[in-house]
């Protein structure tokens, strides 16, 4: 009897433990550009646990500061949708301007800076009042967006103008422009905000820009045996917060470059899926995830070992990723 009871207790507590760990597992949200859906991946089991319909052509996605909401650029619906992550329901649509593609949330958790690809504009939206605060003229086909850790700068890249546009967040004015190589796609600040990394897809390079002088201090080139240099097209970038690595997704070259973030030396190329696009870390940066558009999957990379450990099939044309702790 006693044995039975303790067995039952054990079973119940094991069950509770299971639930607890399930509740704590990190979840990756993946936007599927050509399916109009989000795939949810459990980072413990590395399996797709759910799929939700969202607006048309979802591309950039990002979490709110407290992790309770997900902002989704629904490009062809001309809106930024707000998903409540407790219920996975769309609770609001923000006036993003036309064709929102990428955006960045200011550290104040209030202002969203949205690149409007068709209109050569950056739209600033207040996520609380749902109002457009400002629209800033930028170059042709604005795409990449980044905000400095101190919140002072928002950087936008324009794909056809080939510039980084420096927007002062206190005045919402465009202060300066830095010319980079053809078709700049993505920008990423390092942790202390002193450097800005910018990828040029058609130029095939990544520029490292000194934020103080707004000058390019280094330009990275890539070379993969057996892959023509024209096919090496850098897009997504992630910098590890310990300052050790930069990971650069190389698009149709189907590889991610591992770069020593201090010496700028390329250490390795990791083979992932077809047309690797954007990258994201999990919370403790032990895992790096990549959205592979053409092969329709997400690769999981062990950051310590620098090895690809799994590919997970998601929807059509996965584009962006966000990890909920």
């Amino acid at each position: 009897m006693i044995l039975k009871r303790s067995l039952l207790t054990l079973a119940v507590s094991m069950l509770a433990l299971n639930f607890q760990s399930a509740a704590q597992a990190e979840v990756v949200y993946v936007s599927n550009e050509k399916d109009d859906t989000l795939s949810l991946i459990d980072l413990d089991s590395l399996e797709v646990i759910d799929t939700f319909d969202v607006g048309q052509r979802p591309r950039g996605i990002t979490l709110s500061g407290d992790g309770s909401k997900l902002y989704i650029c629904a490009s062809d619906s001309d809106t930024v949708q707000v998903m409540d992550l407790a219920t996975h329901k769309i609770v609001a649509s923000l006036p993003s301007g036309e064709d929102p593609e990428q955006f960045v949330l200011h550290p104040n958790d209030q202002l969203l800076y949205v690149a409007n690809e068709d209109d050569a504009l950056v739209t600033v939206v207040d996520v609380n009042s749902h109002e457009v605060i400002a629209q800033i003229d930028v170059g042709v086909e604005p795409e990449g967006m980044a905000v400095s850790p101190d919140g002072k700068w928002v950087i936008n890249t324009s794909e056809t103008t080939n510039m980084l546009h420096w927007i002062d967040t206190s005045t919402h004015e465009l202060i300066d422009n830095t010319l980079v190589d053809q078709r700049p796609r993505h920008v990423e600040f390092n942790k202390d905000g002193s450097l800005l990394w910018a990828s040029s897809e058609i130029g095939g390079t990544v520029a490292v820009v000194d934020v103080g002088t707004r000058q390019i201090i280094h330009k990275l080139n890539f070379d993969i045996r057996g892959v023509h240099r024209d096919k090496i097209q850098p897009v997504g970038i992630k910098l590890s917060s310990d300052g050790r690595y930069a990971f650069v997704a190389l698009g149709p070259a189907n590889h991610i470059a591992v770069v020593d973030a201090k010496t700028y030396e390329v250490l390795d190329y990791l083979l992932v899926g077809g047309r690797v696009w954007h990258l994201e870390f999990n919370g403790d940066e032990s895992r790096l995830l990549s959205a592979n558009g053409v092969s329709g999957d997400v690769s999981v990379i062990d950051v310590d070992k620098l090895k690809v450990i799994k590919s997970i099939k998601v929807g059509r044309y996965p584009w962006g990723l966000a990890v909920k702790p």
Partner: protein
Amino acid sequence: MSSRSSYRCPYIARYLGPLLALAALHLPLQAGPIDTGTDNTVSSADLEVRIGYLSYRPATPPALSNVLPEPRDSGLRGAELGINDSNTSGRFLKHHYQLDHLNSDDPDTLLQQALAWQSGGIHLIVADLPASELARLSKTLGTDALIFNAGNSDDALRTTQCLGNVLHTLPSRAMLTDALAQWLASRQWRDWLLITGNQPEDQAYARALHRAAKRFGGRIVDEKAWSFDTDLRRTAQKEMPLFTQGGDYDVVVLADERGDFGEYVLYNSWLPRPVAGTQGLAPVAWHRVVEQWGAAQLQGRFEALAGRWMQSRDYAAWAAVRSVAEAVTQLQRTEAPLLRDYLLSDRFSLAAFKGRKLSYRPWSGQLRQPIALVHPRALVSQSPQEGILHPVTDLDSLGFDAPESRCSTAYTMTNSATGDTK
């Protein structure tokens, strides 16, 4: 018959819409005029860049069978979009682009206009002219000028008729037919029935098809000349099966640039075979169905401007203007000979929505580019095909490569050393 106009500041109308909408909603709008500041990363010397667009538009020949003709303003609208894009980018650098244009059915009028532009300081020309007129323009304007051929696909212009002040943004016929031949080879459709129209352009296209077949392993098993003068809209079902009777073939290839009969070969061939070439599966510089590599954005901008689909000639004119703007941005100079030498150097590359960087061949002035293979509703493939090898770049597997052109001297001579660079 001629029309001319000047074109500038095209983005104002587009911005006015959203601005008014915002004002109506009483939303604070903080985006003031762009202050490029004093500590500028990019130089801010004011530059005016003027480009002239010339096109020869003869009276439309009687259309025997082409139900959907090419738009009369094809080319010009692409140049206008190139100006728009360049001004949106140029305002951050204080560079201003302006387009003047003339359409005419009289070659002398066009040449006079080019001379008038030249004396007025316009040395950059985008041209859609017959080969003989392009040669005359090139000779008349000399090395002070830089001309972009955005309308003529003649192979001789790239191989024997070396015009050192002319760059070609429209693909040559050989590039188009090589692109098709590579794809046919990849499908292993080796035996071709060739039907050629009776125009000189059709003969030229057929010659390019012969060359392409030889290069990529095609066999022209039978060749027929189309010389009928019936309107096929009513009789295709009766005529075509009989006309295409003969031995077996894998594919019918057509050389019919005007569209006299080609559209009526599809579904009417004696054997149930696919049709390719000038009609059917067609190799083109550009088409509405191209949407990869960000092309959807370019298509959207073009349709908003022109109210129609973007054609190959529009794309070629757009690429010409964008080449100028890219060179001006990098050099901060506007002199035509300097721009020419930069564009022909390996320092130049252009992002132009084809998934690869584009550049000019230093032996012929031809813009290297992938070629789309399309049917009217979808992209079928893009050449160069996977697996085609080339010692330098697989893009040079399309068209005449360096050893096949006699023009390298004309292009390797720098114009900026001898030209007027004041």
